[in-house]
């Protein structure tokens, strides 16, 4: 296959990626969009095996190794993607992004080793960029994975003089980067990779739990840019197009997510340095709460005219989406007006709740977005908060200086009655106490969300 045919097929793959992103932006075309993207990627991968030029002859060198490595990747990647539970999807995306960044960094390192003295300054500059950003994306994504998987604390990790250490590491990374460009050598490049990995860890550690999705999206955009840069190094138009597309759309997406959470990107990334922990109400303080039984909840619901269900991560953990739909259907059959109030970042990722409720075949028209549902809480008799906390915490509106201050919330505090289904009094992912739990119009129903909902459903049926 000659270069023109190869490039044309690469262009077709690039167009497929554009159509994929376009399709993924609309609910009706999203699935097809993803398949088009997969087709483009598959096509681009296949074609490499049939292209020869002055540098490579067919069949490819090391073909056995290449095919074997792809097989290993398939054996690891496909089952992981197929078996993962909905609750763990965000961390899997983080992990996939991280390995992509790692792959880009490795590609740049190999090409650098291979070119040796023949590398032009421009190629070395792009190699340095790929290694730095790819390594940051790799180690940063591993940390976000560990935070989401709760292998480590979800709270911001702040250490003494942290900002100086981070700034120092960044300066060192840039300095060594400059050294690689001028001195050319394997050792400086490996030092650069090591320092970049360290910087990625330090960069993500201070980010608070609730902001992790934004960081994943940002690292995703970073990985895109590294792929584009390695495309320059390898003289591949396709990699430049694909990488730049992801970098650009990922940046926009990161901004949209940050907006949905009412944060500036800057605040998210550097907020941990300025947050004053003493502004947050002390956790663990003994204060009276009103807890109820499933029967109490059923009675409250039976005489309500309008009920809004607010799902959160607890719903996902308990896999209670089918039970909550059963409850909603039962209430609707009793003539109660039921809606789901969906906070854009409820759960661990934007849209997490929509995906979960869609699995239980909850009709679209019952899902109301935040702005829409917030105007109706004044006329709502009961708001049922299932495993959500931060997204209904009024501290976001009333307590300047608390980590979620400024984030738009679902204003369930305006409803006549509030029911919280909770496992315990533990605060939410952001680690902030919720005053609403102590409100006199709040009733708490402790226990696993699915078990509690099942009891409420049978109690309501009996009425």
């Amino acid at each position: 296959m000659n270069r023109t045919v190869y490039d044309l097929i690469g262009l077709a793959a690039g167009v497929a990626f554009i159509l994929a992103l376009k399709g993924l932006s609309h609910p009706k075309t999203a699935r097809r969009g993803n398949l088009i993207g997969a087709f483009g990627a598959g096509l681009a991968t296949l074609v490499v095996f049939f292209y020869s030029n002055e540098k490579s002859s067919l069949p490819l060198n090391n073909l056995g190794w290449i095919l074997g490595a792809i097989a290993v990747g398939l054996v690891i990647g496909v089952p992981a993607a197929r078996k993962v539970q909905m609750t763990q999807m965000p961390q899997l995306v983080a992990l996939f992004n991280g390995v992509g960044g790692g792959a880009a960094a490795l590609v740049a390192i190999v090409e650098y080793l291979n070119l040796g003295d023949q590398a032009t300054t421009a190629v070395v500059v792009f190699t340095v960029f790929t290694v730095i950003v790819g390594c940051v994306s790799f180690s940063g994504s591993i940390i976000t994975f560990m935070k989401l998987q709760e292998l480590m604390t979800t709270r911001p990790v702040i250490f003494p003089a942290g900002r100086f250490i981070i700034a120092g590491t960044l300066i060192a990374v840039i300095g060594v980067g400059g050294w690689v460009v001028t001195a050319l050598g394997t050792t400086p490049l490996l030092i650069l990779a090591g320092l970049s990995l360290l910087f990625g860890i330090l960069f993500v550690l201070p980010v608070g739990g609730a902001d992790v999705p934004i960081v994943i999206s940002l690292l995703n955009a970073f990985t895109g840019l590294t792929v584009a840069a390695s495309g320059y190094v390898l003289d591949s138009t396709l990699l430049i197009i694909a990488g730049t597309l992801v970098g650009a759309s990922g940046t926009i997406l990161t901004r949209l997510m940050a907006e949905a959470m009412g944060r500036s990107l800057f605040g998210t990334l550097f907020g941990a340095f300025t947050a004053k922990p003493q502004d947050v109400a002390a956790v663990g303080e003994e204060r009276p709460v009103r807890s109820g039984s499933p029967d109490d909840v059923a009675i409250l619901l039976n005489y309500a005219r309008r009920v809004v269900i607010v799902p959160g991560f607890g719903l996902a953990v308990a896999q209670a989406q089918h039970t909550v739909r059963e409850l909603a259907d039962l209430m609707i059959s009793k003539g109660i007006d039921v809606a789901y109030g969906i906070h854009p970042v409820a759960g661990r990722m934007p849209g997490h709740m929509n995906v979960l409720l869609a699995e239980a075949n909850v009709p679209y028209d019952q899902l109301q977005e935040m702005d829409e549902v917030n105007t109706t809480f004044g006329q709502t008799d009961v708001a049922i908060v299932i495993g959500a906390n931060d997204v209904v915490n009024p501290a976001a509106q009333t307590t300047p200086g608390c980590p979620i201050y400024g984030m738009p919330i679902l204003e369930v505090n305006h409803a006549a009655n509030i029911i919280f289904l909770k496992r315990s009094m533990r605060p939410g992912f952001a680690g902030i106490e919720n005053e609403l739990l102590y409100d006199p119009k709040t009733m708490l129903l402790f226990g696993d969300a699915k078990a509690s909902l099942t009891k409420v459903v049978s109690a309501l049926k009996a009425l």
Partner: protein
Amino acid sequence: MEPMAIVSIFVLSVFVGFEVVSKVSSTLHTPLMSGANAIHGVILVGAIIVADHSETNLELGLSVAAIILATINMVGGFVVTDRMLEMFKGNKK
């Protein structure tokens, strides 16, 4: 490649990238991120190219690692995105 051609491709791709996702609803943020994530798995192409170039064991070892990681990124990414979107489809029945 001509530097000017590369700059043109880069700039135009940036604008296309901005444009195609600028009006996405928050419902689709996660699948879109995941789909974009899978697309950059196309670095697999780069990994295969460097594996072909590899002359030393070190280079080959690193390229093999890159191919494994890139395959996980690409294939896993598309599969997981499809699983997310499958649930939207079931909804319309």
